């Protein structure tokens, strides 16, 4: 896969090394036009700081929120975002595509 300018996994390891709670979000499926390819990742720490991206900025807020929840309860999450999803009206994928994002705690 093409390298990101931000190395998400290195950031995840650095935050874990500093004793922080960390969650990783990964684009696992896309349909239609979507800004970031499958495999794109975002890492969030327990204060809500994040590095990387899973979209062009449209759904990062919602994904970070779910990441924080995953840090708390340790459960994995499979999130759907897209025009057919009610949530799209709130978080909006302007490109009209659909993405599925897997969120998990790193521990």
């Amino acid at each position, binding site marked *: 896969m093409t390298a990101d300018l931000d190395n998400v996994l290195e950031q995840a390891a650095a935050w874990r090394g500093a004793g922080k709670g960390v969650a990783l979000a990964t684009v*696992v499926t896309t349909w239609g036009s979507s800004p970031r*390819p*499958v495999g794109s990742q975002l890492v969030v720490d327990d204060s809500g700081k994040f590095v990387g991206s899973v979209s062009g900025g449209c759904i990062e807020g919602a994904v970070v929120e779910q990441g924080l929840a995953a840090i708390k309860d340790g459960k994995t999450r499979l999130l759907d975002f897209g025009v057919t999803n009610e949530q799209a009206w709130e978080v909006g994928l302007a490109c009209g595509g659909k993405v599925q994002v897997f969120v998990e705690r*790193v521990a």
Partner: protein
Amino acid sequence: MKDATLQQVLADQAAKRAVVLATDLASGEEWLIYPFEAGDDRLKKEAEDAARRDKSGVVETIGAKVFLNVYNPPLRLIIVGAVHIAQPLARMAAMTGYDVTVIDPRAAFASEERFPGVTVITEWPDDAMTALSPDARTAIVTLTHDPKIDDPALEVALRSAAFYIGALGSKKTHSARLHRLGEAGFGDNDVARICGPVGLAIGAKSPAEIAVAVLAQITERLRQSPA
């Protein structure tokens, strides 16, 4: 993801070893698969296919939705000729995710000052290139338009599986080059792999613009090659 898994993927990346992380999307169970290495992991064949295509994705062949995330070693760009164009090209390619090596036997060109942070090899390109053993995730660009330096590099390039080979020089220079390579024993299909004059035709003038044209053509070959 377990901390140990994360550390292992990072170690594999540092060692430039291809690894595929399999994650069961329902249970969260995860395991690492090393494509093209010995071993008989679950989803090995699927992982090899994904790694070869450099395409992560969900597979359902074992009755569960498993996400295969491909962590291939970085793409490589070998630039032959530490000339002016090589400076912006090396920087732009690094930003694009390439591991860049510059080869030029002329030490005055291939100086650390001109290429900060880039691997520079001051050897003859045939030796240096053979040692680097270009593979299907390697792009090669020759920029000296000096046959003494470019031709030996192109000969190694043509014998490799490099996904992109480009050579700087005018149409006239290029046709003379193809003639020489033909005399060296390469067939028409071989030399047709060389992009020359190098780069997409966008009217580039300055060294940085030419670097954009070259990197755009490399990207085109990488992403639009028939699967």
